[in-house]
């Protein structure tokens, strides 16, 4: 479910990061309230644990599926602490192992570190109520919690994929980022997660919690990092989540306004409109360029396959030569400087 870099538009990923920042801050505050120094290693270990169990392949027939385990962590240490632990794991995955994009961290964390643990945890609490840990009702709660948590996270990811072609299209009318619309992304993701990954996640979580209840029951009772009080009303409990979603909704139109024209594809006229003037040198440069490549028309590829590919190749070569020489020369100078310093 890790969304790779570049599949979502920056107009989606950056608001997602913006929405995650207050959520992380609130999570940290919530955890801090009950947090003494002792919880720092505990949170770190839980994050490392979340990281490692995301690599567990759970057998399913001849094949296997990956576990996510966010609901498992949420039930054991509380949803807020789980939010931090899973986020830390996802961020390390993005930076160090390239699983999921760096810009997509906001979206990935929202799906897997907010939606999944919270939906899972509160579904579990709702169903299990005050029943005993070994009771069937409790186990049903765990199963449905992790099943729903994973599926809702998948639904969020599918919607994030699916709105891309609706919102972001280039001049030629083709999608700029993700191209499969909601009518495809949602059924595909949901079929996979509701029939295969979801039940497996549920079974695994139930079995793992049952195992802990049997062999280390003390971990389930008093050792949670953050206890949620049952007295809080719906709104106060979910305030940060609602806040995050509202921020997302509010921020996304800003992205839309900014995409009146594709970024960086402003012609000289549009640039004039946007910043009021065209730098003179630029205008001249533009003339020289036009003289070099007359009659060239880019957007609709009216020039046909051959001439546009010739243009591509020519400009790519010019660019590569420029960039290569700049980088090579500066790197050599920098290396020399370094050597003379040592």
């Amino acid at each position: 479910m890790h969304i790779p870099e570049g599949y979502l538009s920056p107009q989606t990923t950056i608001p997602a990061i913006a929405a995650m920042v207050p959520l992380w801050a609130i999570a940290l505050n919530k955890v801090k309230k009950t947090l003494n120094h002792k919880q720092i290693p505990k949170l770190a270990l839980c994050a490392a644990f979340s990281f490692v169990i995301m690599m567990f392949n759970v057998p399913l027939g001849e094949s296997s599926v990956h576990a996510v385990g966010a609901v498992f962590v949420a039930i054991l240490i509380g949803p807020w602490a789980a939010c931090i632990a899973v986020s830390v794991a996802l961020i390390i995955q993005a930076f160090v192992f390239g699983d999921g994009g760096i810009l997509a961290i906001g979206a990935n964390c929202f799906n897997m570190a907010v939606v999944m643990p919270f939906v899972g945890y509160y579904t579990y609490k709702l169903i299990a109520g005050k029943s005993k840990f070994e009771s069937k009702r409790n186990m049903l709660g765990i199963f449905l919690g992790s099943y729903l948590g994973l599926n809702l996270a998948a639904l969020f990811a599918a919607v994030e994929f699916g709105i891309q072609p609706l919102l972001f299209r280039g001049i030629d009318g083709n999608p700029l980022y993700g191209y499969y619309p909601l009518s495809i992304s949602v059924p595909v993701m949901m079929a996979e997660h509701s029939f295969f990954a979801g039940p497996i996640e549920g079974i695994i979580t139930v079995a793992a919690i049952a195992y802990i209840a049997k062999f280390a029951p003390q971990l389930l009772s008093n050792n949670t990092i953050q206890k949620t009080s049952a007295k809080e009303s719906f709104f106060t409990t979910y305030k940060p989540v609602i806040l995050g979603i509202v921020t997302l909704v509010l921020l996304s139109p800003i992205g839309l306004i900014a995409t009146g024209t594709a970024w960086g594809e402003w012609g000289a006229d549009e640039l004039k409109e946007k910043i009021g003037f065209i730098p003179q040198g630029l205008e001249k440069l533009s003339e020289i360029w036009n003289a070099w490549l007359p009659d060239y028309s880019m957007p609709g590829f009216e020039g046909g396959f051959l001439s546009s590919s010739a243009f591509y190749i020519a400009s790519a070569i010019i660019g590569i030569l420029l960039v290569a020489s700049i980088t090579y020369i500066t790197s050599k100078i920098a290396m020399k400087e370094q050597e003379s310093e040592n």
Partner: protein
Amino acid sequence: MKTKHSQNPKQKTNIPLWMLKGNGQYANIQKQTNFLIKTVKELSSIMQNEILSEKFVKSKGYLQMINPLIKLLTLLVFILICSLTKSLITLILLGFITVSLAKLSALNLKDYFKRIWIILPLLVFVFSIPASTSLFSKGVPLFYIYKGLNLNIAGISLPTELYISFSGLIMILKMSLRIGVSVSFAYLLIMTTRWSSITHAFSVLRVPPLIVTIFNMTYRYIFILSKIAAEMMEARFLRTVGSTGGKSNRSFMASRMSILFIKANFLSDEIYNAMRCRGFCGEGVSLYKFKIGKADLLWIANNILILIVLFLGELLT
């Protein structure tokens, strides 16, 4: 297997023939333990990654001598540009920049291509091929899959023509390039920078010290927990004989998950005590001191020039 000690005539060894045979008759076991092998492979790739990065971080190269904070910010800017651009040329140029930086930073180009370009971008490209057809994208047809067809299967009428368009192909090419290039920049960062310097850069960027401490500790204990987990998988693999069902395998994975959690929990208590004994009072201390040298200034100048080239390219096309 004719006799107990029959030998392989081709090899002059004392290894009995049955040992040299492929485990065809154990194919069933192999199938059953596939998930274990996969998990072990993924877990050990964490360690591989670290060993490789440690090797490259130490070697003398261009990116290695840049201040981690500046490197982090510039590479993030590149990733952002990569995500914003609509031009194929810009993406090709950015791709070229990643290759040349990898070369100048003394990275192993073979490993770079193997890890970045062979897997994800290619996969995305293949999965995106349907999107380049006329079902999803309009444009000048490049070649037809079929034409002038009037088919009606169970009430669903197929479109009369289906083709792959030139602009559709460009579109999916851009997508795979964009993914490959962004992952390349992340690869360049991690292969030339220690995680501890990246987290120190985080703390300079005002990430709360508590979070930075958690990042550092998490990274360290990922290796320990993944080693414990891999050993559990290996132990199960070695003990698997006869046939095991999917149910028992799944319950094995669930119990390993909980054992790992119990161990991690136990470990965290011990670590806390050890930290207290060494005078830990709530905040980690970084031993790094960032200073901006001539190399950093040159690097910034270099990238500003590159950005100008990219921007002019975008503007003029």
